[in-house]
């Protein structure tokens, strides 16, 4: 048997994102953000999106383009302090923002990606992040129910992919990418390098191919990856 080929053109892959879709986005700061796929979402223009992403990037980088174009209705995130536009939209009531503790966001995504319904944790139990959450008494300890998150589409950035969708990430560009790559009905990976089957050692795969639906080879690397000189 041979493994199926999932490589497609970027326009076709991103056309899976319709109005009102929930989209998970990999990346933590610049590393691992799928900048090219994000630009294509801006170009195709689906509206009323819910984004799930660790952070809001910085102004004029990454998902800030989607905020600027008014395509985002809601953002589930952990920290938007580096993006003044996101803060302004939130404070002005034009962007609904749900904040999670960072590891809890990671775990909620992984929970959805693992076909579970949620998990119990005492993280944040004494904070305002507990507000509105279901609590349980577990052996005398109060714990919160954190619900699983899933998305219609997840977009990730890989340093290397094979045509079946096995993915590798590099350095701290891994971050949320392997998690969102588990948790969507359609997982789209952009890859700096697309290799034939066998081009990635089976022990060195970070995201196994069965999780991935579309692989897009990058023709050039976005300038948004450039090292930032502050």
């Amino acid at each position, binding site marked *: *048997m*041979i*493994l*199926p*080929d999932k490589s497609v053109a970027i326009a076709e892959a991103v056309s899976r994102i319709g109005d009102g879709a929930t989209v998970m986005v990999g990346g933590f700061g610049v590393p691992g953000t799928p900048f090219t796929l994000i630009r294509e979402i801006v170009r195709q223009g689906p509206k009323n999106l819910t984004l799930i992403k660790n952070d809001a990037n910085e102004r004029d980088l990454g998902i800030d383009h989607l905020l600027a174009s008014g395509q985002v209705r809601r953002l589930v995130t952990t920290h938007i302090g580096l993006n003044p536009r996101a803060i302004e939209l939130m404070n002005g009531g034009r962007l609904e923002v749900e904040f999670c503790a960072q590891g809890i966001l990671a775990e909620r995504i*992984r929970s*959805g*990606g*693992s*076909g*579970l319904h949620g998990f119990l944790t005492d993280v944040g139990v004494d904070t305002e992040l507990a507000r509105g959450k279901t609590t349980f008494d577990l052996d005398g300890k109060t714990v919160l129910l954190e619900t699983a998150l899933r998305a219609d589409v997840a977009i990730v950035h890989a340093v290397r992919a*094979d*045509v*079946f969708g*096995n993915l590798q990430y590099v350095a701290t560009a891994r971050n949320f990418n392997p998690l969102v790559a*588990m*948790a969507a009905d359609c997982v789209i990976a952009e890859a700096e390098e697309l290799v*034939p*089957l*066998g081009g*990635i050692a*089976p*022990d060195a*795969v970070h995201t*196994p*191919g*069965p*999780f991935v639906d579309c692989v897009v080879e990058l023709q050039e690397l976005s300038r948004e990856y450039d090292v930032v000189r502050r």
Partner: protein
Amino acid sequence: MVARAAREIAPGMVVNLGIGLPTRVVNHLPADFPFCLHTENGLSGIGATLPPERADRNLIDAGGAYVSTIPGSAFFDSAVSFALVRSGRIDLTMLGAFEVSETGDLANWKIPGKFSPGAGGGIELAQKARRVVVLTTHTDRDGNPKLLSECTLPLTASGCVSRIFTDLAVIDVTPSGFALRELAAGVSAGDVRHATGAALEIPSGEIPVF
């Protein structure tokens, strides 16, 4: 029956084959058929089964058979392996059965007082694969039907089975119960009805033979 079951696999599918009969299904597919075999102990892209003299001591399937990789295989841990199963990334699983009910309930892991080794990964595969088909002899060793109106043994999962391949027939589980779809060569619809412990819908007209 195994050859017929092999046709259940469509191009592009991710498939998990239960221990026993199901693993023999791959022998009936062309070498260039594009699909992916998953095993719950942590491998996507299972290659050929190997004899001991060519085996890698670290490379087995969930049934303990020595297997190999193919270009594009990936190894992962048991949590990731079942994340694939539970999140709907297994398009098809083929399982063995002690009993299947006319509502698609499956019992294949325990016979109280006789056989109770634990369920392994069968419960999640039966409950969470997108499509579950069963490969089994139509009756047990004593000639008792395995297709029943209700299961008598502890369930693996309820309402999960879509189709059953037996030595006598191909039978679908429909909202109105078992429906005969195909017959093995030399078997009559009456033979199948006789060997089935529940109502069996038999279509009018000619029934395809496999």
